[in-house]
């Protein structure tokens, strides 16, 4: 099972078309291995992006240096996935 330890999901709020273009450019950079859950589309419409653990500092540095407004939607994706799995198992147990 693929694990996502340390992967973070950031919610980025682009202020203008220029910021959207920068995010779209970021999306094309394959080596960053970004997974856009919600694509950057319009100002004030947030983009959500999953970032592999090893790329988190780099991406955050990029966002901060370019003045992006962002928040952390999920701090450690694996924690949420583990909780989801645990809930499913408990529910199955209860049903039985």
């Amino acid at each position, binding site marked *: *099972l*693929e694990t*996502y330890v340390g992967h973070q*999901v950031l*919610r980025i709020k682009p202020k203008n078309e220029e910021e959207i273009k920068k995010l779209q450019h970021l999306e094309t950079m*394959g080596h960053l291995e970004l*997974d*856009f*859950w*919600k*694509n950057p*589309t319009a100002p004030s419409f947030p983009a*959500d992006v*999953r970032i592999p653990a090893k790329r988190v500092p780099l991406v955050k540095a990029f966002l901060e240096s370019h003045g992006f407004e962002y928040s952390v*939607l*999920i701090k450690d*994706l694996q924690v*949420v*996935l583990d*909780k*989801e799995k645990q*809930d*499913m198992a408990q*529910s*199955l147990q*209860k*049903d039985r």
Partner: protein
Amino acid sequence: STATFNYGTYHSLDSIYAELDHLASAFNNIVRKIQIGESYEKRPLFVLKFSTGGRKRPAIWLDAGIHSREWVTQASAMWIAKQIASEYGNDPSTTSLLNKMDIFLLPVANPDGYVFTHTTNRMWRKTRSRNKGSLCVGVDPNRNWDAGFGGPGASNNPCSDSYRGPRANSEVEVKSIVDFIRNHGNIQAFLTLHSYSQLLMYPYGYKCTQAADYDELDNLARAAAYSIRSIYDTTFKVGSICKTIYQASGSSIDWSYDYGIKYSFAFELRDTGRFGFLLPANQIIPTAEETWLGLKTIMEHVRDNPY
């Protein structure tokens, strides 16, 4: 039996498919399970047909889970299936709808992807078909429809999550739906469930021009969004795919609309702002409840406005 299926939790494909049998058995007066094809990895594609009888009646199509990681859509579809069956004979709106029209519900449009999200990679979105000449697997089945195929807003890179595939309908999951709808010949509405963004969208996505029925679709979508909001105050943004999100070619509702199905809508379900599409299970039923209200608004309009 249906009494033991917990609609407020996420389930494996086997469990969902078992529940389809239970629903068909428990509500055998109006529910029938039909196989419309099989996936790339040979899993059956099952639809529930809700019908009070008669052949070739006008019908509504509803699918969920074409993007496998959007688990709340498959889960909502199951709750909605039970709701439709339970409401017949008890709720005047659903009863009059089913007395006039059939509903076809495909709860897991991408079963291979769904199984893969349970066994190997929870983040998987695409189908599981092999791509010739590439190590990367899968096609985005919502970029694979014959609607502006290959245009902007879809990738030609097999490693991309929005890879459109080698040609329109290359994915057997997509082609099975297309064939079913063509063979049926009287589908009046095409509704598809996605997550997450809280959007209710209508064509087009492959181009940014207005659909011929723009005014009616926009008004109807706004009415549906109003219904959705009425229960838990969840606000949906309404508009065409292109204006609401971005230009995206090869999507299902663009194909269905161009094929002649006027009432073509895509729902993007609930976003709590905390979990993305890893929506906690305790949100499944509220999400399904509000979605069903929106769907009902559209279905009632379809029932009352044949074309």
